[in-house]
């Protein structure tokens, strides 16, 4: 028991000290951001984390923060582990973080029921609970710019474009290569509906988490089924393996399309030349040719304050971190404008996020003209179901392959609402929305 007491004492002392720090930094906006620089998925966690970190460092260096207030940006390491993420949530709460960014679906699910109680909004960008797109049920959760269901829908649209129309899909075999976990199985209902609608055969190819790097049997079945297209809802080490196995088995890699989390530069690169033509969905551009990235290089990277090697700046996942930074910064700006306060709280942040309207002009104002398609959040739509495009790996970098694809909102939205309703009923006592709606027309 001695150790327990010791541990207890140390942590009590720690929390007291932490509270002291939080009180001292009153003239800054605190933001604790989850990262996973260690663990099985650190390959994607590091570039994303670097992007966000560098973006806020750049804002602090270039503009002195947002609206004249410094952003007290702090990372919290989760190792992609739910238990660590819970710690980070509590850490954010103790430090008055204005926003919780879980960066893992498990962590999002654990935090969602607490958000309206702790008054800390959650932003799970393109992951998490799809149903949380319904702002009427989840006023505190945001998952812009797109859900997995929209992604699967956009993938089928892409296939139809390539095949020459939806009527050509009839009789085709389309496979879903997915991680055998809730994340991987998300697109199944949408693909099943679309398969019925357009008459293609849907084949499922689950990959167990322990088998991520050993997919030969899965790709054997793909060859045997003569699958025409494969959608890869994969994660971490599973992606480069899929690309390599596809190439080895003679599957045309330009018919293998990854979800946006399967589009890292390091997912395609290890397969070498064989990966040429591998495709993935994306919602923002890659490369460093944007004023905002140049500013990051100038103010942060060149001063040696970045954790990222310079050649990685502008890679896909790095830019995703920057993308998330821009949305958050814009929401903070909105919150400041709405409330007239400089130092905002979590509640203000929620209003700011709900008023988010990233038009082309706003992207340009953030130094990112043409960086991404518009994102518009409303009180009932916390996702915006923005357009994606398909990019293709040319052996060195990602190149845009298709025009913007707009997910079919009229198809996906009712399913989202149904799922949100199911969540509210299965969680008896889920509160009805009482937060007033900010008019952002």
């Amino acid at each position: 028991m001695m150790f327990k007491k010791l541990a207890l004492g140390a942590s009590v002392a720690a929390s007291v000290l932490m509270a002291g720090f939080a009180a001292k930094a009153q003239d800054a906006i605190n933001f604790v951001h989850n990262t996973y620089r260690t663990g099985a998925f650190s390959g994607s966690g590091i570039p994303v984390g670097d992007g966000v970190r560098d973006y806020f460092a750049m804002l602090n260096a270039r503009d002195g923060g947002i609206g004249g207030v410094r952003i007290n940006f702090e990372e919290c390491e989760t190792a992609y582990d739910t238990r660590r993420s819970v710690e980070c949530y509590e850490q954010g709460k103790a430090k008055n973080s204005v926003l919780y960014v879980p960066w893992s679906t498990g962590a999002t699910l654990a935090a969602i029921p607490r958000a309206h109680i702790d008054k800390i909004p959650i932003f799970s960008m393109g992951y998490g609970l799809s149903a949380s797109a319904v702002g009427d049920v989840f006023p505190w959760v945001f998952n812009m710019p797109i859900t997995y269901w929209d992604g699967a829908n956009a993938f089928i649209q892409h296939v139809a474009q390539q095949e020459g129309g939806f009527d050509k899909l009839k009789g085709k075999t389309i496979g879903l290569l997915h991680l055998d976990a809730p994340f991987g199985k998300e697109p199944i209902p949408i693909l099943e509906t679309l398969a019925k609608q357009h008459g293609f055969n849907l084949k499922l190819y689950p990959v167990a988490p322990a088998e991520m790097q050993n997919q030969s049997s899965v790709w054997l079945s793909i060859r045997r089924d003569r699958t025409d297209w494969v959608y890869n809802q994969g994660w971490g080490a599973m992606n480069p393996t899929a690309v390599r196995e596809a190439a080895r088995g003679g599957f045309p890699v330009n018919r293998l399309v990854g979800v946006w989390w399967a589009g890292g530069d390091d997912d395609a690169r290890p397969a070498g030349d064989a990966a040429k033509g591998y495709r993935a969905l994306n919602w923002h551009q890659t490369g460093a040719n944007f004023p905002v990235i140049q500013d990051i290089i100038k103010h942060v990277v060149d001063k040696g304050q970045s954790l990222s090697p310079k050649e990685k700046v502008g890679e896909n996942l790095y830019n995703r971190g920057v993308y998330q930074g821009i949305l958050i910064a814009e929401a903070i700006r909105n919150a400041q404008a709405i409330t007239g306060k400089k130092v905002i709280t979590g509640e203000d942040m929620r209003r700011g996020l709900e008023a988010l309207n990233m038009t082309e002009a706003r992207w340009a104002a953030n130094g990112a003209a043409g960086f991404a398609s518009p994102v518009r959040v409303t009180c009932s739509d916390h996702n915006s179901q923005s357009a994606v495009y398909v990019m293709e790996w040319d052996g060195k970098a990602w190149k845009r392959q298709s025009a913007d694809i707009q997910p079919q909102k009229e198809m996906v939205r009712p399913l989202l609402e149904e799922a949100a309703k199911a969540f509210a009923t299965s969680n008896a006592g889920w509160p009805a929305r009482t937060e007033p709606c900010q008019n952002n027309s």
Partner: protein
Amino acid sequence: MFYRETGQFKTTYADDMAIFPIRQDRIGLALILAFAFLVVPFVTSDFTLKTIMLPFLALSVAVIGLNILTGYTGLISLGSAGFMGVGAYACYKLTTIFPEVNIIIWIFVSGFFAAAVGVFFGLPSLRIKGLYLAVATLAAQFFLQWAFVRIPWLFNYNPSGAIEVPLRTLFGVPITGPTASLEVKYLICLCFVVGMTWLASNLVHGRIGRSWMAVRDMDIAAELMGIKLLNAKLMAFAVSSFYCGVSGALFVFLYLGGAEAGTEFAIRLSFLILFAVIIGGAGSMIGSFLGAGFIVALPTILKFGLPAIGIAITGATAEKIVLMIIGALTIYLLIVEPHGLARLWQIMKQKLRVWPFPY
């Protein structure tokens, strides 16, 4: 000086068989319990309660469970996280099917489901031992993890594949779900831990525990002495899995409050529990607590405690250091002190007994 048994005479058989024969031990235990029940929930911050105390309590039940199997009966299992998952899912199914029954009953009952599964996967232990049994229980771990993801009935066909903890009350006070206060959750967890520890401690000191230890020390000899190996080993698996199951239910319902359990109850957690047994001390109740406390508290203290006292350490570095410390300590203790931290505690007590005049 203060810790001395001089003058305490054992006049009855009951005195002689007491688990805590020394008065100071009993006082110390009472003090610790009083502290845990009356002081901790009111003075510690939410952060400490949520990130250290709740996982510590929930996991210590599982560590006791594995200790019964590994420490007392000498059977290695790598399936503890899987059995925890069985408990969590059973509790979820039970409380969604019968919401009117109190959740505390279901948390307890879910242990029986885990026990049944544990007995099933414990059957091979009659024929195989050591490393081979570890592999067999590893199969249980992977099978259960597979089942949690693949059988949608288990998570009520929830599209996110997760189990969400509904709001449940006791006498009108919410005890699970988002609105339950941390103090209430902590106290309920603590009650479970105290109750189950008392139960385990009585088990291992009684006839059943002695038969387990006989099997551990030499199973052929135990059989010759009339202990039925089948009963003893399966009993150990049942009790151990029961503890893991209750721990899993506590873990999800009182600590996490909803999670993607397929990834939560992964092999990683099984190993952590095993390390906790090794570090804390195989075959010791107090060792279970020391081990669980060490595994749970060390990462948090390194990550948040050190920066708070001014030692700059990034989260990523802390995570790596934790891995190194746990790994190194496990190997060190296995070689140098197989009885773990519990043995150190014993040595300390022994020294204290004769202090300050050791000769």
